[in-house]
């Protein structure tokens, strides 16, 4: 590879138009090199300038030494989905440098560590060679931490090249290292050095800049899994069983931190919760069912492989009617698959998880705010419907950083469902565990410990009567299954309803769910701007669906169902629900492990509509 010494070689200054607050920055490093702190600082500094941002961490299933990328998209219109084009590259990793440079768009900016100079073979970009090693030595006498601190030098360099306010970088550093004042000083000096060095040595001739705006003012920046943990905290969770698995572990880790801080009895210091790390996912869901049966609000979090192990208990929850919540943070599978890549590949499995006739309630958050709200809601619904509720997030939503309006305190009290106490039994003088008293398919239950001779019942996975006695009679079996169907139908109106995100008289509809939402929103704008194509957009937020989805499908010529899986799993669910509308559904599918982009959706729809 011929070394290029040219900086600012062939891009004529006259071609430049300033692009303000619309940029994708990619930082290419090695995992385990400590770049996460620097990337967080960069992300937060931009966010603190009031600019909407999104930060995605693309990392290997490895602890140290493999290439990792952090992508920041700053966009004045608030588009938060992944975008294919990279405008600005920080290349720190020799292993990926050649490919990283190749992927930079023409006219883009590259900041390269000086040892990567030999890889520079393009003349259509603005390249800046920075002697990070020499620079960091000036501020960091300790040799062994220089590699870490060098990352903060690039934050200063990028800050200078993109006009990020240095005060915001300083603030973000203070926040990142708030418990380590010594590290904060060191990093502040490193960032300042990078900033000043860049101001003195680099000619800022590219077209990108960032400037203060107010769109993200008052907003928060949070990862979906942290939001989910907050939802469980405010949902009043009391028992958490878990087994570590990427990308769900941070749900429980965040929850453990929150519970430890906010859920100890002020008088005694004792815990109003229990978290137990299980020996496997079967035990984790077993804890949840035991606790749910005894009346606790219990959850577990997992991902695809763990969900498979939970299948038997899932059926017991459904059939014996025991409240339980599983948060499934979906990743690429089957098997180990790509544990650090995202997808929506568990929808169909989760909906039908277990054996026999079995259908579960799914809550599908489309934003970090919904992660918070639906986590809370899942606990209410599990107790209301005395069944398993699956909370279906994914790696993109769960582990990446999203801007959101601040979360609001719960608007309603906790719903503990139909639980009869000893006092209720004394008044009613009658109790049959599985009798549909109210006609909604939801029976009443009692909790162990209720002091009344009528309270006890026997919970079993075997056939049972309305009075919870053992039965193999065909009519008992069928009646019970039919009641469970009634219960499921009741849930249609009780789960988070679909949202008509964009109404239109167009005969084209789009349906999406979960983390595809940001890409679909952006795509709708692209469709309009690029081809004048208008489309209505319905976002599904839960299963089972109700008539609203049917109506949306029925009233349009065609509906594009966008999903991040190969097998059109949500389309299969809708086709089961509405077979007569089957032909109206066309799938837009994305399943390479990276988050879906607006371009994927736009191109697929334009091609299908013969507008390309």
């Amino acid at each position, binding site marked *: 590879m011929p070394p290029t010494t040219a900086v600012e070689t062939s891009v004529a200054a006259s071609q430049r138009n300033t692009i303000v607050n619309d940029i994708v920055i990619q930082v290419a490093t090695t995992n385990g090199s400590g770049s996460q702190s620097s990337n967080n600082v960069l992300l937060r500094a931009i966010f603190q300038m009031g600019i909407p941002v999104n930060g995605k961490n693309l990392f290997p299933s490895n602890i140290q030494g493999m290439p990792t990328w952090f992508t920041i998209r700053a966009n004045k219109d608030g588009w938060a989905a992944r975008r294919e084009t990279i405008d600005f590259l920080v290349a720190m990793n020799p292993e990926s440098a050649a490919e990283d440079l190749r992927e930079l768009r023409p006219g883009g900016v590259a900041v390269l560590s000086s040892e990567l100079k030999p890889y520079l073979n393009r003349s259509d970009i603005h390249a800046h060679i920075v002697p990070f090693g020499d620079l960091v030595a000036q501020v960091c006498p300790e040799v062994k931490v220089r590699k870490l601190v060098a990352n903060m030098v690039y934050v200063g360099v990028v800050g200078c090249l993109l006009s990020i306010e240095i005060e915001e970088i300083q603030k973000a550093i203070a926040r990142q290292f708030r418990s380590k004042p010594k590290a904060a000083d060191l990093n502040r000096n490193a960032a300042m050095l990078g900033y000043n060095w860049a101001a003195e040595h680099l000619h800022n001739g590219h077209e990108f800049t960032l400037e203060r705006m107010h769109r993200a003012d008052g907003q928060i*920046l949070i990862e979906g899994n942290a939001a989910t943990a907050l939802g469980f905290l405010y949902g009043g*969770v009391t028992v958490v069983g878990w087994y570590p698995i990427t990308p769900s572990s941070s749900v429980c880790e965040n929850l453990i931190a929150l519970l430890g801080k906010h859920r100890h009895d002020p008088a005694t210091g004792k815990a109003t919760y*229990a978290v137990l790390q299980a020996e496997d996912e079967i*035990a984790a869901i077993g804890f949840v069912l035991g606790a749910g*049966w005894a*009346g606790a609000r219990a959850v577990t979090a997992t991902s695809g492989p763990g969900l498979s192990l939970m299948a038997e208990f899932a059926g017991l929850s459904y059939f014996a009617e025991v409240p339980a919540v599983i948060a499934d943070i979906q990743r690429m599978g089957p098997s180990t698959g790509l544990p650090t890549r995202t997808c929506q590949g568990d929808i169909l499995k989760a909906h039908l998880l277990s054996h026999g006739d079995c259908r579960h309630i799914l809550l599908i958050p489309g934003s970090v705010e919904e992660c918070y709200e639906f986590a809370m809601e899942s606990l209410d619904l599990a107790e209301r419907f005395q069944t398993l509720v699956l909370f279906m997030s994914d790696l993109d939503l769960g582990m990446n950083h999203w801007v959101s309006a601040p979360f609001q305190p719960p608007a309603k009290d906790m719903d503990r469902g139909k639980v009869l106490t000893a006092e209720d039994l004394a008044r009613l003088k009658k109790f049959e565990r599985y009798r549909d008293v109210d006609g909604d398919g939801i029976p009443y239950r009692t909790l162990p*410990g209720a002091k009344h001779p009528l309270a*006890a019942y026997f*919970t079993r996975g075997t056939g049972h009567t309305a009075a919870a006695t053992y039965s193999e009679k065909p009519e008992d079996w069928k009646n019970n299954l039919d009641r469970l169907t009634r219960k499921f139908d009741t849930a249609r109106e009780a789960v988070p309803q679909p949202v008509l995100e964009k109404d239109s008289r167009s005969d084209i509809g789009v349906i999406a769910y979960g983390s595809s939402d940001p890409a679909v929103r952006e795509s709708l704008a692209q469709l309009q701007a690029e081809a004048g194509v208008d489309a209505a957009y319905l976002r599904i937020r839960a299963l089972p669906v109700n008539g609203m989805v049917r109506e949306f499908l029925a009233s349009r010529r065609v509906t594009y169902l966008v999903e991040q899986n190969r097998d059109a799993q949500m389309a299969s669910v809708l086709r089961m629900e509405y077979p007569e509308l089957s032909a109206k559904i066309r799938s837009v599918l994305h399943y390479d492990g990276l988050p879906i982009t607006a371009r994927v959706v736009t191109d697929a729809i334009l091609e299908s509509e013969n507008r390309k």
Partner: protein
Amino acid sequence: MSATLTEPTSATASAPSATQVTPSVNRLGLTQAAYRGAPSTLCSGCGHDAITHQIIRATFELGIEPHRVAKLSGIGCSSKTTAYFLGQSHGFNGVHGRMAAVATGVNLANRTLINIGVSGDGDTASIGLGQFLHMLRRNVQICYVIENNGVYGLTKGQFSATADKGSVQKKGAENEMTPIDCCALAIEMGCEYVGRSFSGDMKQLSALLKGALSHRGAALIDVVSPCISFNNHEGSTKSYKFAKDHEEPLHDIGFVPAFEAFTAEYAEGATHTINLPDGARIVLKKVHRDYDPTDKTKALELLSKARDERLFLTGLLYHASGQTSMVEQKNLVDDPLATLPQSRVRPPPEVLAAIMDSLK
């Protein structure tokens, strides 16, 4: 309190329906009928029914309030039996081999419940071995009874993991693998109450059950309970005949409940007296050998010898105290987590506002 109980000295029948010479009401004023469950549907003569009956008697005689008991089981003949006792207690017949995890969840959700777990050798030692061990090392509050017959009864007689080496199946196949000794494993896992018994040894089983119900943390009783249909033949080491011929009690066990005076009569000839957390006592008297159930190494040595020499040693194999229970390790509030009101489990809005501010 209407305590009119004496320590039962003889057991006269093995079937739950049989007439018993026991007081008509216990200290709660309840009759034994209040501790019965649905009629058993197991084969006539099944060892499990005798254990069911001892559970009924033990809970009745201890005067346990039925509503405070949670009955937990997995899948198999043994696991069905939780329906046959304590009809006024909530029961949860879960999935195969996973009762341990369910019990763990129940214990976390409501620490005030008395958990009685009934499992089989297949349920515990084959499919459920992992969960069983983890439950013990966590020291979950439970009286865990293994109804051990060495075979799968409900699926008609396949060997389980506790089948002895050289034991012969009904159809003639011989087990060549090393049996899993749940008691030895339990001692290794730190379980502090480990007993072995025989469903036909009423007096011993009754005392062991009562002790287990008074123990803090996990208590295990492995009860050899012959399967009349699939493992009661010549060549079986879990048959009635084999058990009767080979049972060697390590000691004579007496149990004195907390509500009863500890008299000189009990103390006489006792080699060991074990004080239980609720004030009850277990009194051990020498039979043949000197055995100290508080010596962990000796207990494991003896179990190893028993396996090698095919001895059927019964009694309280191991007892200790001092380990914290799971509920203590978790520092749980005294009230059940299950019924804590919203005000105790939902932080105030100011907490959320502060968290939101920190994310801005």
